[in-house]
């Protein structure tokens, strides 16, 4: 034990920042509100680093595992003598690591926003919400029981809602915030049911008790789980249902298929918010929670863990394919985030418990750790680019490396990291994930390697279209032919079509970029297994050369294709394919003469259909719209509304009208005639007397 009450400062300082800025933010002139936010977050970050440092230098327990420290625990609500909800701070390797990630990214985003949000309306409100989010997220990861997790889980949802809808005058932002909130709330319904099921059968909320019990026995767990394993519903044990439902909450928060639809739209929020919430911290809460309950998943319900692996692998593939055809740079990054979270979840899903089998667990969290830095870096770079170009669309960019050298270098570092090129951090974590999937199932390993290649491709597509080539101008203002624009670009690379010259972002924005780029370079070399492993016993997971070579080659191939296709402006063929998918089906004389024309036409049609489907995100959003509007709104809600209006309202209206009519009938009694009243009074009195006398 160490005297650790001061660690409570880490979540409380951002809360203080929130309270101060909500109360007094409007009166603070200029950037004062931002300075307060930065200062308090900075102190919180410092305390978090110190906590992590102290924690990881604690001696190991007698059985070789890391200690867990319950800093304090306060009883909040007692249901019955055995079951109570406690609020507290629970420190273990996982929460200490998460604190470092959250405070670092949050601090960088706070500093960066000083430049990015300068002069915006609601500057203080923005910082207040950032404080609220940091508080909720920091409280979430140190929750000692699943109920506190749930409380903070909802709090991060609310702050995410507030920040996505920050530009509340923009209809897209408002609807995106609502979408995010509703989708995650829907998933949280499952989460809550899972919590209730789990606690009903096990009688505890505590992570510590649950995980300790799961490691007892071999595959049957401690006595705690016996009722949950015996009860069954639709052929699955109650425990499996509980863990599946909890995973549903995780899938909603972590944007796994099919609950991913809110994340791309959440990009309507300010870009630093996307970096903090929708790339680095909040969306990995699902990964965090599965990791937190990992012993239960791995030892008690391995089937559920396998489901997680398959869902995550599909999500990863889906998002990577969609990311290849998006044109909004933030959406590319959003889909890439979904894909990378898929990687983390796959690693958890294929992992075993303890020793070398637990590699997936360690590398999943390692990827979470490195991904937080390089994805935040990529988002912040995107923010700097949007800040100067005033557009999210790729076609408004090109050739920016001349104007923004620092951002360019940082972005390149981020791209190399996410593509998995050594010595950048993404290589080490992604390589671990690939090794873990190969150990689980070679086909899964091949699939994930291919997705890693896709990752490299779409990231360098993004990179090339932003920084390389040259700006071809907005096609709407240029000659309609894509050829002409392309030719103009290749003939005159020094042409200056930007409306105003793009400029490098101010220092307050580039310094966080450089810092995060440095982290993206350095964090890969952390021997993560020594700090964090599934059973708490430090373990080394060396790089496997066979897997590493394969993944590097795939990544290089992806980069090469991307650079070839998009490096010097857009190649005409790709341009045509991207802009006018029908170009391949246009018959011309030669192809008409060709006997294989029909076959070619069929292939082209199929490819174009695929391309269009990918651009439309495989119609998942439309499917949701169909379900919600056509089936729920038109089918069910209309009938319910009719019932409500005519039966329930009719009943009440009838009651009111009936009362009114009867009142009009009987109001003559209230005539105002004193003598009538006296007569009625007399008759009443006589009746009473008679009753008394006769009975």
């Amino acid at each position, binding site marked *: 034990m160490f005297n650790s009450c001061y660690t409570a400062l880490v979540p409380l300082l951002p809360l203080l920042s929130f309270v101060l800025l909500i109360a007094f933010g409007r009166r603070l002139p200029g950037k004062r509100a931002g300075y307060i936010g930065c200062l308090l977050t900075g102190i919180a970050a410092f305390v978090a680093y110190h906590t992590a440092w102290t924690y990881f230098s604690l001696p190991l327990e007698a059985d070789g595992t890391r200690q867990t420290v319950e800093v304090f625990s306060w009883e909040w609500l007692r249901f019955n003598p055995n079951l109570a909800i406690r609020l507290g701070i629970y420190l273990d390797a996982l929460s200490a690591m998460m604190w470092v990630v959250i405070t670092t990214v949050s601090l960088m985003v706070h500093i960066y926003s000083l430049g990015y949000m300068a002069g915006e309306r609601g500057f203080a409100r923005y910082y207040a919400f950032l404080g609220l989010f940091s508080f909720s997220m920091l409280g979430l990861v140190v929750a000692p029981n699943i109920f506190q997790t749930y409380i903070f889980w909802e709090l991060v949802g609310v702050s995410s809602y507030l920040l996505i809808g920050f530009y509340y005058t923009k209809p897209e932002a408002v609807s995106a915030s609502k979408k995010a909130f509703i989708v995650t709330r829907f998933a949280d319904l499952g989460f809550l049911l899972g919590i209730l099921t789990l606690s009903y059968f096990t009688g505890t909320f505590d992570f510590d008790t649950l995980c300790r019990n799961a490691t007892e026995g071999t595959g049957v767990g401690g006595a705690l789980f016996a009722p949950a394993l015996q009860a069954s519903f639709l052929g699955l044990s109650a425990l499996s249902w509980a863990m599946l439902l909890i995973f549903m909450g995780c899938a909603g928060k972590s944007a796994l298929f099919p609950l991913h639809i809110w994340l791309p739209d959440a990009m309507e929020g300010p870009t630093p918010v996307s970096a903090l919430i929708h790339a680095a911290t909040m969306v990995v809460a699902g990964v965090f929670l599965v990791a937190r309950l990992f012993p239960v998943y791995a030892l008690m319900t391995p089937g559920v863990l396998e489901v997680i692996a398959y869902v995550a692998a599909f999500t990863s593939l889906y998002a990577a394919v969609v990311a290849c055809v998006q044109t909004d740079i933030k959406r590319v990054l959003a889909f890439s985030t979904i894909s990378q979270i898929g990687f983390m979840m796959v690693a958890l899903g294929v992992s075993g418990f303890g020793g070398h089998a637990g590699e997936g667990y360690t590398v999943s969290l390692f990827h979470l750790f490195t991904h937080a830095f390089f994805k935040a870096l990529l988002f912040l770079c995107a923010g700097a680019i949007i800040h100067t170009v005033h557009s999210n669309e790729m076609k408004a960019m090109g050739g920016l490396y001349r104007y923004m050298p620092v951002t360019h270098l940082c972005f390149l570092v981020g791209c190399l990291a996410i593509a998995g090129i050594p010595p950048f951090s993404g290589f080490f974590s992604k390589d671990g994930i690939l090794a873990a999937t190969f150990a689980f199932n070679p086909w899964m390993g091949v699939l994930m390697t291919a997705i890693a290649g896709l990752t490299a491709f779409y990231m360098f597509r993004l990179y090339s279209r932003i920084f390389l080539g040259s700006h071809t101008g907005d096609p709407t203002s240029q000659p309609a032919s894509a050829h002409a624009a392309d030719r103009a670009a290749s003939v005159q690379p020094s042409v200056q079509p930007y409306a105003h010259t793009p400029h490098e972002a101010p220092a307050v924005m580039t310094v966080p970029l450089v810092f995060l780029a440095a982290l993206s370079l350095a964090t890969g070399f952390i021997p993560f297994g020594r700090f964090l492993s599934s059973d708490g016993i430090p373990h080394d997971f060396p790089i496997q050369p066979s897997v590493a070579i394969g993944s590097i080659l795939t990544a290089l191939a992806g980069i090469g294709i991307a650079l070839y296709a998009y490096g010097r402006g857009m190649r005409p063929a790709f341009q045509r394919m991207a802009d006018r998918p029908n170009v391949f089906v246009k018959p011309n004389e030669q192809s008409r003469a060709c006997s294989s024309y029909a076959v070619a036409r069929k292939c082209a049609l199929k490819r174009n259909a695929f391309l269009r489907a990918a651009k439309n995100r495989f119609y998942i959003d439309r499917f949701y719209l169909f379900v919600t509007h056509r089936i729920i709104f038109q089918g069910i809600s209309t009938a319910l509304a009719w019932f409500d209006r005519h039966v329930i309202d009719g009943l009440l209206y009838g009651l009111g009208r009936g009362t*009114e009519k009867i009142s009009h009938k009987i*109001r*003559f009694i209230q005539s105002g*005639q004193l*003598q009538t009243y006296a007569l009625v009074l007399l008759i009443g009195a006589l009746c009473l007397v008679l009753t008394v006398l006769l009975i």
Partner: protein
Amino acid sequence: MENIPMTYYLVISTILFFAGIYGFITRRNLLAMLISIELLLNSTDINFAVFNRFLYPEHMEGLFFALFSIAISAAETAIAIAIIINIYRNLKHIEVQKLNKLNDLNPETSAADAPGDETGR
């Protein structure tokens, strides 16, 4: 005096009481109604005195209560007459059944707000 039984007094007071009630209900004139009220009060005063005299001859509370009641009824009469005079000054009559200026059921004053107007929302 000693040989008059209590019942006789009570019969008188009951006759007075119901005469008062009858007058209160049937008279149209406010002053006549006021007189009827006085009859009611007097009958109760008689009851106070009689019960005290016959049931608790050693106490005096009933008699005093009758005295209080007479004093209060005098005050009440003064106020009532003041009200009646004011009504007469304003309306030139003291017919109790025509004092319906504030009543919307009165056909003269409120033909416009017939019942049913309020239902039409």
